C-alpha cells in the first residue's frame, strides 16, 4: 500500500511539474507584452520600473522560472496582473464553485449512468438497448455549447423556469434562501455537463457488463439456480465496474474542458471561466495558478480512481 501510493504520487508529481513547466514557457511566448497592459501611461518611469521589478519581469526567463518554482514550494503563486491580488486568493474564490459543479455532475453521472448501462447490457440487442446506444452516440458527439443553448432556450427563455446565468442573484440572500437560489442557478450548468459526461459512463458500463455476463463464472452462478438480479448484483457488477471507474478518472481532463465552455456560457464564477477571462486579459500568474490547480485535481482524481479499482479488484496488489 505504502509503496503503491509512493509510486503513484511520484508519477503524479511528475505530471504536475511537466504541466506547470509547459504552461510557464508557453505563457512567456505570448506575443503581447504584459508590461504594457499592466502599466498606466500616466505613471512615471520610476513607478513603472518598480512595478516591473515587483512582478519579477526584469529577470531572465530561467531566473523567472526558478523564482516561480521557489514561490510554488512556499505556496506563493505570485500576484495577479489584473487586480494585483495574490493569485492564491483569486483561485480560492473560484475553486469552490467549480468543485460544486463537478461534484454534483460526477455523482449524478455515476448514479444514473451505471444503472442505465447495466439495464442496456441485460437487454442487449433489444429495442431498449438500441435506443440507449443511439442516445449514447449522440451524447458522446454533442457539442457542449449546443446543449447549453438548447437548455437555455427551453428552460430559461421559453419556460422561464431557471435563470440564464450567474451563480446567485445579487445581492446574495441570507440563510436558506441563498442556498435555494444557488441550487436554482446550478441546475442548467450541471444538466449540460451531466448530459455530455453520462454518455461515456453508460457506454463503458454496458460494454464491460456484456463482457462480464459472457464469463464462465456467471454461467456457473446461473447453474446454481440464482436469479438474474442476484447474479448481477453479487457476481457481475463489481467486475464490470472496473473499466467504468477507470474511464471516470480519465474523464476529468475532458470534464474540465467542458467546464470552461459551460462556465463561460452560464457566467458561472468558477475556474473555467477564470481561465477564459485571464486569457483575454493576458494575466499569466492567474493562468499559471489555474493550470496548477487543474493538474493537481486531475492527478488527485487518478490516484483516487486507482484506489477504488484496487478495492474493487483484490487481484491488483497495491504493494506489488
Amino acid at each position, binding site marked *: 500500500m505504502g509503496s503503491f501510493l509512493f509510486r503513484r504520487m511520484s508519477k503524479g508529481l511528475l*505530471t504536475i511539474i511537466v504541466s506547470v513547466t509547459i504552461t510557464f514557457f508557453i505563457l512567456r511566448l505570448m506575443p503581447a507584452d504584459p508590461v504594457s497592459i499592466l502599466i498606466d501611461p500616466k505613471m512615471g518611469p520610476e513607478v513603472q520600473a518598480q512595478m516591473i521589478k515587483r512582478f519579477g519581469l526584469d529577470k531572465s526567463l530561467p531566473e523567472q522560472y526558478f523564482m516561480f518554482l521557489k514561490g510554488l514550494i512556499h505556496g506563493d503563486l505570485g500576484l495577479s496582473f489584473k487586480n494585483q491580488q495574490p493569485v492564491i486568493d483569486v483561485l480560492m474564490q473560484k475553486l469552490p464553485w467549480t468543485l460544486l459543479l463537478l461534484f454534483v455532475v460526477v455523482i449524478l453521472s455515476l448514479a444514473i449512468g451505471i444503472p442505465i448501462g447495466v439495464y442496456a447490457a441485460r437487454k442487449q440487442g433489444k429495442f431498449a438497448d438500441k435506443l440507449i446506444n443511439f442516445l449514447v452516440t449522440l451524447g458522446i458527439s454533442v457539442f457542449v455549447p449546443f446543449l447549453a443553448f438548447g437548455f437555455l432556450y427551453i428552460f430559461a427563455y421559453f419556460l422561464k423556469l431557471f435563470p440564464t446565468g450567474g451563480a446567485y442573484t445579487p445581492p446574495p440572500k441570507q440563510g436558506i434562501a441563498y442556498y435555494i437560489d444557488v441550487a436554482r442557478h446550478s441546475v442548467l450548468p450541471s444538466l449540460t455537463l451531466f448530459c455530455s459526461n453520462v454518455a461515456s459512463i453508460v457506454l463503458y458500463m454496458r460494454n464491460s457488463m456484456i463482457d462480464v455476463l459472457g464469463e464462465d463464472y456467471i454461467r456457473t452462478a446461473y447453474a446454481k439456480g440464482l436469479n438474474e438480479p442476484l447474479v448481477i448484483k453479487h457476481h457481475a457488477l463489481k467486475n464490470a465496474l472496473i473499466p467504468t471507474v477507470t474511464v471516470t478518472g480519465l474523464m476529468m481532463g475532458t470534464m474540465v474542458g467542458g467546464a*470552461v465552455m459551460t462556465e463561460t456560457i452560464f457566467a458561472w464564477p468558477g475556474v473555467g471561466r477564470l481561465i477564459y477571462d485571464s486569457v483575454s486579459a493576458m494575466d499569466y500568474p492567474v493562468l499559471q495558478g489555474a493550470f496548477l490547480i487543474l493538474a493537481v485535481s486531475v492527478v488527485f482524481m487518478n490516484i483516487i480512481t486507482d484506489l477504488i479499482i484496487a478495492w474493487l479488484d483484490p487481484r491488483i496488489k497495491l504493494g506489488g
Partner: protein
Amino acid sequence: MENRRSFFKYFISNRLALAGLIGVAIIIILGLFAPAIIEQPKGYGPDILLPPSINYPFGTDNLGLNILAEVIWGARTSLYVSAIAVGVAIIIGVPAGLISGYKKGFIGSIIDSIIDIFLTLPVLPLMIVIAAVVGSSITNVAIVIGIFSWPSLARVTRNSTLKISEMQFIEAAKCLGIPQYSIIFKHILLNVMGPVLVNITLVMATAVLSESGLSFLGLGDPTTWSWGTILKKAWDAGAVIDTPNPWWWWFWPSVFIVFYVVSFNILGTGINEILNPKINKK
C-alpha cells in the same frame, strides 16, 4: 486481393459503417465543393434575421447573411482543420506508438510515460492558451489540435504493436536479417492499420469539437467561416436568450457539428465491428 474484396463486402453489409460513410461523404462533398455550391457569405445584406424560408432555408443572421451558406463554408473549414490535425497526430503518434511497442525496454517505457502524462493533461485549457499565443490563423489552430491529439493514437498503435511484435512472422523477419526500420514501418505498420484507422476517425471527430470550442471561445480565425465562429457570433448577439429569438442562427451550425461528429464516430464503430466480428456475435 481476396481479403480486400471481403472487407468491402462486409462494409456494405454493415449498416452502421455504411451510414457513417454516407454522412462522411456528404460532409466531404459539401466541404470540397462549397465554392461551387454557394457563394461565400461576405459583407452584409438587407434581409436581417429572417426566419427559415424558401429563399433562405436556414434563415439569415444579424448582418443579413445566408446561414445556409455560412454552414456549408463551415464544413470546408472543419474538414480542413480535422485533416491537418489528423495529419499532425499521425506524424507524431504512429511512429511513437510503433517504436515504443516494438522496442519495449527503456525507450518504450519513456515514450509510454510521455503518452500517459499527455493523456492526463487538461487538453482544452492548454489549447486555449496555445491558440492565444500562436495567434488565430486556422492552420495554427489545426496544428495545435493535432499536437494534442497524438497521444490516443500513439496508445492504440502501441497496444496493437505489442501484440503483433510477438507473432511468429515478425520473428521470422528478424531471422531473415531484415533491417529493424523495415520491420517496424512495413511489416508491423501494415498489420496495425485496422485499429489505427478506427482511432483516426475518432480523432477527426474530436478535432472538430476542439476547433468549434476554440472558435466559440473567440480563439479561432475570425476571417474564416467555421461552425464555432457562427455560434460565437450568435451567442455574442444574444440570439439564445433575448427576445426576439432567432433560434435558427445557433441551431443549424450546432446540428452540423453533431452530424459531423456522429458520422465519423459511427464510421469508426462500424469499421471496428467489421475488423472484430466477435463483438457482434457475443
